[in-house]
């Protein structure tokens, strides 16, 4: 099966070789045709640098990128024709109307003249912007600009779509609409390369994810397999009454708990052995005559995996109390 993207030994050094900053360090991965591929990493890990190299906005220091069988360094033109790009910043022309933004992009991508208007109307209707088509974009909300930015990226029906943080800052409805659209485009055959901080978004959308850290690929697999590989970050979530928020320290001190994190009115206790910890939590509640409002076991989330891989292990932040005594590994707060 031919890959949509093949990356070999990709390296980027900002500044002079030898004294520059190494942003991406001999990275290699493939993106299959027709998949939604998530690219995750903490700030400064090399996500955006990698995506800019994949979209011809930055020249690699070393390595090779092949997209749809074309070497990007030698023959970018056919790749660019099949590629759509939604950057983190909604790069629309604020001085033009939504309609004119789409028409301009259609001209750039040489969408046949007779198809432009119909395609623009279809997209504006899909994104709920048809009524505002003649309004200057400077009067649009952030969500509307985002939707227009995506419409501009797909007006030429790209076979490969790059999305950089498509939903942060949007209201829940806009975010959901964009995720639905990504799924729909993917179902119609578009390969999607999704760069995101939103771990749950990647979990919901992506067939496979790569986690990049310090410029290197730290893990690459399906979300479920990654979670399965990190069983040690399973957890038990418990809500107790009365004084639900006051039990963090004793719960964290239970023999099978490795970490406690306050989650609203609940405590999440990380463990390698959830069944043993469940009994200990029940024993703790019984001994203090507490009511167990809810109790559940959770597998590792993709966020837990991400934190583990990127060295930000769950529970590494100490829980602060008024007397600021050192406590067992705890995270969160709000007590």
């Amino acid at each position, binding site marked *: 099966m031919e890959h949509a993207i093949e990356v070999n030994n990709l390296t*980027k050094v*900002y*500044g002079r070789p030898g004294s520059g900053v190494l942003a991406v360090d001999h990275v290699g991965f493939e993106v299959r045709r027709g998949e939604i591929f998530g690219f995750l990493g903490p700030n400064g890990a090399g996500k955006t*640098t990698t995506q*800019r190299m994949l*979209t*011809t*906005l*930055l*020249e690699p220091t070393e390595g090779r990128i092949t997209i749809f069988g074309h070497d990007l360094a030698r023959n970018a*033109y056919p790749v*660019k*024709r099949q*590629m759509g*790009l939604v*950057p983190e*910043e*909604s*790069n*629309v*022309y*604020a*001085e*033009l109307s939504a309609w*004119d933004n789409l028409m*301009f*992009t259609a*001209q*750039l*991508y*040489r969408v046949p003249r007779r198809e432009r208007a119909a395609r623009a109307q279809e997209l504006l209707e899909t994104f709920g912007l048809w009524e505002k088509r003649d309004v200057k974009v400077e009067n649009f909300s952030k969500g509307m600009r985002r939707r227009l930015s995506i419409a*501009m990226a797909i007006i030429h029906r790209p076979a490969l779509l790059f999305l950089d943080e498509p939903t942060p800052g949007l209201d829940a409805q806009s975010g959901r609409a964009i995720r639905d659209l990504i799924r729909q485009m993917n179902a119609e055959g578009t390969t999607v390369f999704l760069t995101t901080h939103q771990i749950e978004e990647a979990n919901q959308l992506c067939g496979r994810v790569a986690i990049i850290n310090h410029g290197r690929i730290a893990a690459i697999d399906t979300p479920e397999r990654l979670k399965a590989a990190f069983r040690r970050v399973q957890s038990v979530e418990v809500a107790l009454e009365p004084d639900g928020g006051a039990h963090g320290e004793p719960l964290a001190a239970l023999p099978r708990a490795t970490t406690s994190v306050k989650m609203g009115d609940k405590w999440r206790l990380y463990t390698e052995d959830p069944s043993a910890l469940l009994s200990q939590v029940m024993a703790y509640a019984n001994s203090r005559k507490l009511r167990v409002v809810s109790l559940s076991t959770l597998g590792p989330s993709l966020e837990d995996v991400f934190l583990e891989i990127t060295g930000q292990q769950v529970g590494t932040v100490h829980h602060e109390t008024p007397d600021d005594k050192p406590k067992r590994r705890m995270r969160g707060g709000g007590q």
Partner: protein
Amino acid sequence: MTFRWRQRILDELAQAWAVAVKDVRVYYLKAPMIMFGLLLPFFLFFSFSVRRQIGAEVGLTRLLALTTFFTASSAGPVIIPLERRSGTYDRLLAAPMSLATLLLGKTLVGAFFALATSIAPLLVGVLVMRVVVANAGLLLVGVVLASLAFSAFGLLFGSIPTRSVGSIMMPSTLVRWPLLFISGIFIPLAEMAPWTRALAYLSPLTYAQDLMNHAVLGTGDLNPWLDLALLPVVLLVFLVLAARMHHRSLVLGAG
């Protein structure tokens, strides 16, 4: 030429045109464009010409040279950093067109701006001041060539990888203003000292001014064919340099 290549060239020309038209619509009324491109040449002209006894014909040649030079070379330094800041420049760089096409589109924007600005002094000169243009065809070709060459000159500054118009205006002003004073606009070449005249020959504005002189006055200090031959060369040299600077930005990841 195969059909595929012919189609590709037609596509690229259409893309350059689309970029130019979009820029005209988006940026012509931006404050820096009006300040540096529209008002500045007229301020300069009146500052250096009003109290001196010059004929309307000479005034017209000066004003045409000033407007083509300042107006055309203002577009790149204003538009490109504004586009870098809003992220829209990435949209253009990622589009399926060559860098040469993008730069051609950007060159056309400045040239259109200069041509449009030149019309006002020309109309005032011919209709109000009754200036008789010696060679209208040469004037048209001269203004077009000078506008294109100076617009490409402005692209050099626009190619500096920054998102701040102010950061570009500093080097742009440092280079453009000295050129203005050594190019035979305010002091004719024939009246210059030999060493300043040698410097003047290095400035493309000298050849544009000389061409305006030939076209309007019917006389100049240099051969008009030399002026006509050099301005396209200058245009090409500036475009190549701008392309190299853009490529350097892609390597450095700057801007």
